[in-house]
């Protein structure tokens, strides 16, 4: 019973990681690559660590696996947010099929405000 569970979980986890790597290879621009990678790889590693917890069925190993999964879930979105922000400010171009860019209109408003202020002051 446990063996079947481990086989199913490890297969789904390994396939999630495979899809993440296909996504990073095939997606058209950086932001789509980022959004594919982070979620799928976190799911895959989480499922494989659940397999480890099932296999050893020991409290210390389960705690370790839960700690690694918690740490990954906590840190992966933060790192992705940081590197995505850096990429936007460095001027990495957006794919031509992207329909919404909220940061762009925000930046234009800020520029317009700065211009108004400098005109009133000047």
């Amino acid at each position: 019973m446990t063996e079947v569970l481990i086989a199913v979980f490890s297969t789904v986890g390994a396939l999630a990681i495979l899809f993440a790597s296909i996504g990073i290879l095939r997606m058209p621009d950086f932001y789509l690559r980022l959004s594919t990678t982070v979620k799928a790889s976190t799911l895959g590693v989480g499922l494989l660590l659940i397999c480890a917890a099932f296999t050893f069925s020991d409290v210390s190993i389960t705690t370790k696996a839960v700690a690694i999964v918690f740490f990954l879930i906590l840190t992966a979105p933060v790192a992705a947010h940081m590197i995505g922000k850096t990429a936007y400010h460095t001027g990495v171009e957006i794919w031509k099929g992207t329909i919404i860019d909220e940061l762009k209109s925000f930046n234009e408003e800020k520029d317009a405000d700065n211009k108004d202020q400098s005109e009133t002051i000047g």
Partner: protein
Amino acid sequence: MTLNTYFDYIIFPILTISVILVMIRLIKGPQVVDRVIALDLIITIGIALITVYSIRYSEPVLLDIAMIFALIAFLGTIAFSFYLDKQIKK
């Protein structure tokens, strides 16, 4: 078919092919940020490989190293984005 042969013939090859695919992106990657996320993904797949290895050869001690890898991946990505941000402000 036991679980060990299943790990040997299915799970390990899938993870290895994933690392090779990400390696292509690491070499090709048009910008620096592409390479940074490719490196991050390679380390994450490394955690998965260590986990599967520790299940296959029943050595749970190796999970400690997986934890350290997760920490290093996070710190590396944060450090890269920090210094790339500094580069454009000059």
